[in-house]
Structure formats: structure tokens, C-alpha cells
């Protein structure tokens, strides 16, 4: 079940710096939005507000009409929002398998803390191993994240996100640090396994990925939304090119 998202007049500031300034974004169910903008333009701050890690100074976030303001991050996660991180956020001392399994512990009854029936364990194991298999990580299930390559770590984060079966996914630079071929591969994985049946916002600098996944993009610059529309049209916009690629109009 994909979710509809409505962000209205969202603002926040950190230590005097306005990170977001009255940003409006609407997402219809199942829509995929690319979010681009120079470093520090407020893209990741927007994600932090969506997941409840910062409180907005003003504005509202509605998920299927439900106001997320004031909800704790764990509550928001249970409403069905999951994300990945630009700088990767993996549990360093837990195995790859336990990293993916982390998404399955929410909302479990107390009994589950002490006992899972062998059948339930097997079922969970099978489904998570299947998931790891999609990302080519099943061989590495018992390794620690530190023993993976960067590309595998990014895949692992996406696998963890899928294990939670969210309605809205937030991908923060899923292809950062990847070669074109790797970007191509992760684009395909996202297209076939992540996006179907979900709404998504994707932050990415690589246009290769954005163009392939997002029919629509929004551009942030210095905390303001400066463009929003069909991908081709926005990328052709000279204001966008100016803010994103440098002062020189081209």
C-alpha cells in the first residue's frame, strides 16, 4: 500500500542557519520524487524531519492524511516510513543478517522477546535470506558490515529498509561512491524491488539514477524549493543549472 505524502510550509533551522524554508511537496500514492540540490541545501534535513529526528519550526507533514508532527521516530517508522543514509548507518558489531533483521523487531509482542517458535524463526530466516539473496549478500550473512565493500553496504541498507516493508521509502544518495556500472545495477534493483507498491523520495546527485527512477524531481537550494516538475523540464531550467552546477549559465 503506497502512501500519499503532503508536506506543507516546512521550515527548520540549526544553530541560526535556516536549513529549510517553507518547503511544500506533495506526493500522490506510488509516486517517486527525485530530490536534488547542492550539498547543504537541506535535502537530508528534510529526511530528518520526515523521520521525526528534528522538529520542524513550522509546517506540517501528512502521511495519508495523518499528521506526523510530534510523533517519535519509532512511531513514524511503524506508520511505514523507512530510509537509508548518505553516510551509511549500519550496526557495526552485529552480523549482516542481524542488520537486516533489525527491521523486524518493531511492534513484536513481549513473548517474542523470549521465544520464537522454530517455525516462526525458520520463516523469518527464509524471508530475510531471500531478501539478502536479491542483493547478493546471502553469502555474507554472518560477516560484519565492516567486511563488506561500500557497494554491498549500500545494498544492505536497502535490504534492511525492505525488511520493514514500508509504505514510503526515503533513499539518501543510494549510489554515492559507485561507478556507472554499479549505479546501473542498483538502479535496476531499486526499480524492481523497492519502488513497486511504494511511494518514494530519492536524493541523488547522479542523474543517471534520478532520470531512470524519478519521473518528477524537485530542486532545493539553500533551504528553498526552487523547482518542481517533470524531470526533463526541471533539468533544462536554467535557474536549476545555475544553482546546481555553478554560477555560469550554460
Amino acid at each position, binding site marked *: 500500500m503506497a502512501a500519499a505524502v503532503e508536506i506543507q510550509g516546512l521550515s527548520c533551522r540549526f*544553530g*541560526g*542557519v535556516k536549513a529549510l524554508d517553507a518547503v511544500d511537496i506533495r506526493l500522490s500514492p506510488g509516486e517517486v520524487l527525485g530530490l536534488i540540490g*547542492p*550539498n*547543504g*541545501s537541506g535535502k537530508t534535513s528534510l529526511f530528518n524531519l520526515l523521520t521525526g529526528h528534528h522538529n520542524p519550526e513550522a509546517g506540517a507533514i501528512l502521511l495519508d492524511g495523518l499528521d506526523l508532527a510530534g510523533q517519535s521516530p519509532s512511531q513514524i517508522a511503524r506508520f511505514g516510513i523507512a530510509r537509508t543514509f548518505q553516510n551509511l548507518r549500519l550496526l557495526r558489531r552485529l552480523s549482516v543478517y542481524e542488520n537486516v533483521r533489525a527491521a523486524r523487531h518493531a511492534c513484536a509482542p513481549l513473548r517474542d522477546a523470549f521465544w520464537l517458535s522454530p517455525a516462526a524463526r525458520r520463516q523469518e530466516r527464509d524471508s530475510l535470506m531471500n531478501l539478502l539473496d536479491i542483493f547478493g549478500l546471502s553469502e555474507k550473512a554472518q560477516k560484519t558490515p*565492516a*567486511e*563488506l*565493500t*561500500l557497494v554491498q*553496504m549500500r545494498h544492505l541498507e536497502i535490504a534492511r529498509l525492505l525488511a520493514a516493508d514500508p509504505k514510503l521509502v526515503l533513499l539518501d*544518495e543510494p*549510489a*554515492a*561512491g*559507485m*561507478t*556507472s556500472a554499479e*549505479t546501473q545495477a542498483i538502479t535496476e534493483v531499486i526499480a524492481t524491488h523497492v519502488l513497486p507498491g511504494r511511494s518514494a523520495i530519492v536524493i541523488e*546527485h*547522479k*542523474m*543517471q*539514477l534520478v532520470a531512470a527512477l524519478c519521473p518528477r524531481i524537485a530542486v532545493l*537550494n*539553500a533551504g528553498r524549493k526552487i523547482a518542481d516538475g517533470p524531470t526533463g523540464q526541471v533539468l533544462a531550467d536554467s535557474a536549476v543549472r545555475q*544553482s546546481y*552546477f*555553478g*554560477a*555560469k549559465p*550554460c
Partner: protein
Amino acid sequence: MLEIRDIRTSYGKIAALKGVSLDIADGGLTCLLGPNGAGKTTLIWTIAGILKAHSGSMKLDGEEISGMRPHSIVSKGVVTVPENRLVFPEMTVKDNLIAGAFSRRKEKGGGLDDLEEVLERFPRLRERANQEAGTLSGGEQQMLAVGRALMARPKILLMDEPSTGLAPIIVEEIFEIIGRLRDEGRTIFLVEQNAHLALDYADHFYLLEQGHVTFGGRPGEVDHDELIQRAYLGARKAS
């Protein structure tokens, strides 16, 4: 001035720099372009000695500096202006600047003779000299970080993404400062996302992708748009 040869650095098992070689020429601005995650910041931290390269060499005027500890590298004259304006938020602007001269403690006057000059260069800092640095705006903090580095009388100034998180008008101001420093004949090594802007000021540039230097040249030698297309948009084009 600084010769970097086949530097390799990794985080755990992730190789971030896979054999980087480049030269930073004496006087002038050398610019390093590349997409996020290409290893640009890793290279800066490696030159500064905070990350250890596990192979390769870095020679400053012929003297090997790889393996030295960060403070020794600073006292050799390789000074970093880090990304995200790492200032000392709870210290006054003046103390921040004094902190920049730590490496020159043994000189007469403790290296504080440049304080006046730096405050002259950045009048906005002089106005706020006794204010805590954490209360400054982003642009002012960036100026402070540059000023602090200048206090060390650097032979080479390493600047890591000075435009991050700043409004376009402030970015232009910062780049004017960088341009002025270059015109004074200082050696600057600049890592920057804003390719057009950087190429306007650079004397020489390198392109870093996937931990490799994939291109090096002078601005104007190549079509900038094509270069940017390659570096940032991920389009595959033959070089």
C-alpha cells in the same frame, strides 16, 4: 610543491583512494573535482595526516610527509580548511584565530604577528572578534576557518568544499576571497562541488572518480560542460 604518488587509503576494508597521484604546483590554485563519494575528502584528510595512507608517498618540496602526525604536517606548512567549517564554537573569534598559529609557537612573538593582518583581511571578523564563534553565520564561520589557516602562514592551503551549505551569494563572496589569495601568489588546493565556479578560478584541475584520478588538465583545455557531465551526471563518455 607537493608531489603525491600512488596514495592508497582505506576505511576498514573499503578502499577509498586506490592509488592517487597528483601534483600541486607552487603558486596558483589546483582544483580537485569529482562526485560525492569519490574520495575527495579522504584525500584531504590523508594529506593532513589525520588518515593514514597505507602506501604511496607525499613529498613537500622533496621532503616526505606521509606518515607524519597531523601537527607536524601543519608545522611543515600544509594547512587544512576543513569541510563544514570546523571552528571552535565556544571560543571567541580571536581565540580561534590565535589557535591557528599553534604551529608557529617557536617563532618570535609566537606567530601572532599576523593577527592584525588577518583581521584586516576579514573586517567582518574584526567586528565580531570577541564573540563566540558558534554565534557566527555560516559564511562568517567559513571566513574564520580560512583566517585561522592563514595564521599558520601556510605554504599550501588545503580547502575542502568551502561552499557547502552556503547561500549562493555567500559562496561568491568566499570565492572572491579565494581568488584574492590566489592572486597574492599563494598555493591553494581546492576540493569543490561547484564545478563551474571552481574552474573559473583554477589554474589546474584534476578529476577524481572512484578513488582514481581520471583526468588532469587546465581549464579551457576541455569542454567544461562535457567534463561536468562526466563528473557529476555519471554519463559515460570516452575521455
